[in-house]
Structure formats: structure tokens, C-alpha cells
């Protein structure tokens, strides 16, 4: 293998940490008017097995917004986080981007998007009281040229912000 290509490949791999995440506001895809729910609730998180930090952040955000956790409450609040596949609008352009980034060892950044859906479902007994679903999309850039700004646009922080905002936005629909 050509030494130059090899080196640029290695450089490209290390660029996984030279990245930036750009925050997007969560978007509702299912929105129901919620009457303010009772203060005491049971909380159930689903899909957070590999998102422990995010779970704890969101949990304290929910409890700070005035709700209290009570194991005997008839009201259940379910928070469901799902990872989704993202389909790019311009697939060939996206591929050109990858190749360009690969052969410049990441001086041209590589652009990707991750997509999550978060659902807040409130139920009492058999009855579903409300359910809201929001889409969280995170634009991300990876590349050597991003090194100076990486710490300001750390993707996880942008992701955390969009998770917390989804709860606030859900509360606004009361």
C-alpha cells in the first residue's frame, strides 16, 4: 500500500475525535394536548441502556420540573428513546464527501447526521392520557480542520441539550 494513502487513512481514523456536533431544535411528530398531570408519577425509561449519562440528566430535569417519583402512583410516565436510521437526501454527494475527506486525511470534514426519536407517554391504568413524540437530529462534522473547535461543539453535549429540550417542549404543550 502506498505510504501516503496509509498515513492519510490513519489520520482519518484519528479524526473520529476531531468532531463537532451542531444542535438542532427537536421537532414534534406526534403532539397531544396534555392536561397537567398529577404530581406523583412512576417513571420508566426505555432504550437508555447505553445512554446512562443522558438518562440521569433527563431524570433530574423531569424531577426538577415539579414532578415527584412515587412507586405506588397510578400514573406512569414512560420515556422511550429510539435510534433511527438516517437516509441522506443526496446520497452520491454524501459519498463524494467521504472520499474527499478520506484522501485529504480529514482536512475536508466528513458530514453525518444521527437521528433519534423520543416518546413521552403518560398512562393511568389501561388508559393512555397523552403521548408526544419528538425527533432529535444531530448534524456532525469530523475532520482535522475541526480540532480548534471540537471542545466547544462536542457532539455528546449537543445531543444532551436536545434531549433536555425535548422534555421542555413537551411541557409547553400543556
Amino acid at each position, binding site marked *: 500500500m502506498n505510504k501516503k494513502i496509509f498515513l492519510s487513512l490513519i489520520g482519518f481514523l484519528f479524526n473520529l475525535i476531531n468532531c463537532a456536533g451542531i444542535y438542532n431544535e427537536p421537532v414534534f411528530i406526534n403532539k397531544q394536548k396534555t392536561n397537567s398531570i398529577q404530581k406523583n408519577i412512576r417513571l420508566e425509561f426505555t432504550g437508555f441502556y*447505553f445512554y446512562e449519562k443522558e438518562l440521569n440528566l433527563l431524570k433530574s430535569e423531569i424531577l426538577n420540573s415539579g414532578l415527584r417519583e412515587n412507586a405506588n402512583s397510578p400514573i406512569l410516565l414512560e420515556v422511550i428513546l429510539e*435510534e433511527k436510521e438516517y437516509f441522506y437526501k443526496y446520497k452520491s454527494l454524501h459519498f463524494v464527501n467521504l472520499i474527499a475527506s478520506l484522501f485529504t486525511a480529514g482536512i475536508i470534514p466528513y458530514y453525518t447526521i444521527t437521528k433519534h426519536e423520543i416518546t413521552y407517554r403518560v398512562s393511568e391504568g389501561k388508559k393512555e392520557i397523552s403521548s408526544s413524540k419528538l425527533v432529535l437530529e444531530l448534524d456532525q462534522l469530523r475532520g482535522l480542520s475541526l480540532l480548534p473547535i471540537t471542545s466547544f461543539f462536542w457532539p455528546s453535549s449537543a445531543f444532551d441539550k436536545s434531549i433536555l429540550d425535548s422534555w421542555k417542549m413537551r411541557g409547553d404543550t400543556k
Partner: protein
Amino acid sequence: MGSRPVANQNIPKVDKDITYELIGWKDKENKIKATEILKALHRAEKFKTISHFVKSDSEWKIQIILDESPQLAILLGEPVQPVSWVAEKRPGRYSLYILNRVLSAATRLVIPVFQVKEEIITFRVWKQNVKKAEYSYPVETIRAFGWISLALTFFDDKKEIETIYSDYALLFLIDSEKNYE
């Protein structure tokens, strides 16, 4: 992959109508696995009926949840998690990944590129909105990409990996035996 669970085929019947809800089975590959689980649940004939959960009008519900660990693609790929995830949460694994990729590039794929994926399959039994029980089963798969693994394609255990999902579904039916009262 890990050891296969052993499931006894004699599963006592429960005279209940059950709904199921699938969470986290996002892409095509995952949907095949989810189908394996549902097939197994139907074949076991444990419940009177099994139907898809639409609105919470039924008493019993089973949530079938998949949590997938992030993994680095062969080169980069399209991670479903924020890109900083692996470096931030599994720094040890991240450095191994880098080392593995450097080595395999240097040896021109004689040392294969490894991909490790952890999956956690969780079954939750709900009666109305009260959680009766929860069972989690781990599945770990290792994929190798290189010349040697190309030669070994004949011994691929992909078929077996698929049956592991139905085995876990049966195991869940046995484990959750006492929770349908």
C-alpha cells in the same frame, strides 16, 4: 458469540390475550431478528392470542426492547449514536479499535478488522400500566473482515445467530412463568 441458552419446549399454557410492542428494532437486519422472536412466541402457543399493541386497551402487554452498543464501522460508516460516543464512554475499547485498524492496514488485511457489538434484549411484562417483570439477555457478536475471514466464510454461524433470538424468546416464556396472574 456467547453460549447458547437452552430452552425446554414444554411451555405451560396461559389463558390470556397478550399484546406486544417492539422498541429499538430500527433497521432491516434488526427486523429479521424481531421476526424470529415473534415467530417463536407464536409457535410456543403459550397465550390465547398475541397481537400488536396499538392503544392500551388490553390488560397484558409485553415490551420487546433492543439496546445496541455503538460500534466503529470498518472505516467510518454512519454511526447511529453521536460520533463522540465510543471515544467518550469506552476509551479502552476505542484505543483497541484504533490499534486494530492500524495493524490491519499495515499488514494489508492479513490481521482482520474486528467489529464487536453488544446487544441487550429486554422483555418486560406489563399488566395495565404496572410492570410485573423484566428479563434481559445479552447477545455479543464479533465480526472479522480480512483475507483469513474470507476463506472461512463457509463456517459462518450467521444462521445460528438468528436462532439465538428465538431461543431467548422461549427462555423468556419459561422465566416469566409466574408473572401472569
